[in-house]
């Protein structure tokens, strides 16, 4: 069996499960781990051991117990997350409240209609309803946009997220910020001052893993040169050294077919 230099892989399983390997050793060990069901079992077992370590505090020490309010706070936070992750929810709320307005407007108009004639009141009601529907749509769109922004913001602010810059030459200078969430193996890309791409073409993101480009998402910038892509899977189980962007056919390429436009290192912290 071969493995990382010096230590045999079996010897590393315990330290790996404890999170005690250096980043380099951990990457090397993970490469081995992917190929060895036996090592996977070992790591799994050692993780169970690690999970029990928390219970090993001394008995004589001052007592401390779970605060009674914590359960409610945990559930409240989860409920909050659930509400935020359902974009339909705020929209439903919007239409409920606007239904109240429609009803109110209708009853007012009906009251007026008693004097001025129901026909014209009905026409007005229809106009108000149309107007309300238009505003309602606009409001729903705004709410949706806000929800999306909030989701982006909170995912960028999560602990362990690092930002990397992909840069280029050119005037004005385009740029890309790549937010890498290592825990979730996901990235968000925010591009700005990107030149428009011809029809049928798109920008394509590449991760440079173990020295070779791994194709990722394609995207087209907005009219103002901005671009935002979320939930990009980041390849696992190798050494990522950089991310780069090229222009490719809209469906994406397996290998870059044009020179690199933007590039930046993904240094391990």
């Amino acid at each position, binding site marked *: 069996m071969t493995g990382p230099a010096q*230590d045999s892989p079996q*010897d590393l399983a*315990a*330290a790996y*499960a*404890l*999170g*005690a*390997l*250096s980043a380099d050793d951990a990457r090397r060990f993970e490469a081995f781990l992917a190929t060895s069901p036996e090592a*996977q079992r070992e790591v*799994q*077992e*050692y*993780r*169970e*051991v*690690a*999970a*029990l*370590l*928390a*219970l*090993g*505090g*001394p*008995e004589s*020490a*001052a*007592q*401390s*117990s*779970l*605060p009674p309010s*914590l*359960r409610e*706070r*945990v*559930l409240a*936070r*989860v*409920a909050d*997350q*659930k509400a935020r992750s359902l974009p339909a929810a705020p929209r439903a709320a919007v239409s409920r409240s606007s239904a109240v307005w429609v009803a109110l407007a209708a009853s007012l108009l009906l009251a007026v209609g008693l004097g001025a004639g129901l026909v014209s009141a009905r026409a007005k009601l229809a106009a108000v309803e149309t107007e309300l529907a238009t505003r309602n749509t606009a409001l729903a769109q705004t709410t949706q946009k806000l929800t999306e922004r909030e989701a982006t913001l909170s995912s960028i602010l999560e*602990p*362990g997220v690092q930002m990397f810059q992909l840069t280029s030459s050119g005037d004005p200078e385009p740029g890309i910020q790549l937010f890498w969430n290592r*825990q*979730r193996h996901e990235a968000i890309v925010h591009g700005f001052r990107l030149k428009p791409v011809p029809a049928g073409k798109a920008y394509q993101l590449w991760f440079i893993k173990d020295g070779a480009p791994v194709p990722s998402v394609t995207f087209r910038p907005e009219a103002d040169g901005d671009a935002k892509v979320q939930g990009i899977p980041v390849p696992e189980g190798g050494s990522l050294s950089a991310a780069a962007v090229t222009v490719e056919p809209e469906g994406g390429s397996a290998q870059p077919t044009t020179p690199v436009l933007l590039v930046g290192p993904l240094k391990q912290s």
Partner: protein
Amino acid sequence: MPDAASRPSPGADGDLVARAAQGDERAIGSLYDRYGAVLYAVAYRIVGQRADAEEVVLEAFSQAWREAPRFEAGRGSVAGWLTMIARSRALDLVRARSRRDRITASAAADRPDTPPAMGEFRPDPGRALDTDERQRQVRQALETLSPPQRQAIELAYFEGLSQSEIAARLQEPLGTVKTRVRLGMQKLRECLRPFYFERGT
């Protein structure tokens, strides 16, 4: 605590995660009832403060809620998964705190080198099934280690130090530290195998 009638009948750990993945937040409540105390213990031992430990437990369960759809039942126990999440969040918090402390130069001088190494945690009796028994076994298992083995393992797990960092901290050769971690963990594994948390499947 909600009354028993409003709570669904408890299932296996893995089923609870599956229900959370489908959007049933009550499953998180059940997981909390089972493992909240364990997570709090991990968090407290790492961060050494109640308020921070509570925040870690909150964060850990929110993360578990988000990641429940990706939980792989074949890859270990739910408790192990939850504990790992809590440990990472706790270490993040300690690191963020030490970054903050470095920025606030005055605070740096007051900060002890080592966070409180021995937790003062005792789980609520009767809250989690078996916790007392497990706790006894874990303590006994830890007693079988040599003090340096135990120290190396605790520095790795509770302070998030790599083996090289432990060697530097203790001014011992790296090889010595590696051996301590390996032999100590082997011994713990032998002692604790019957007491692992319930499997995810």
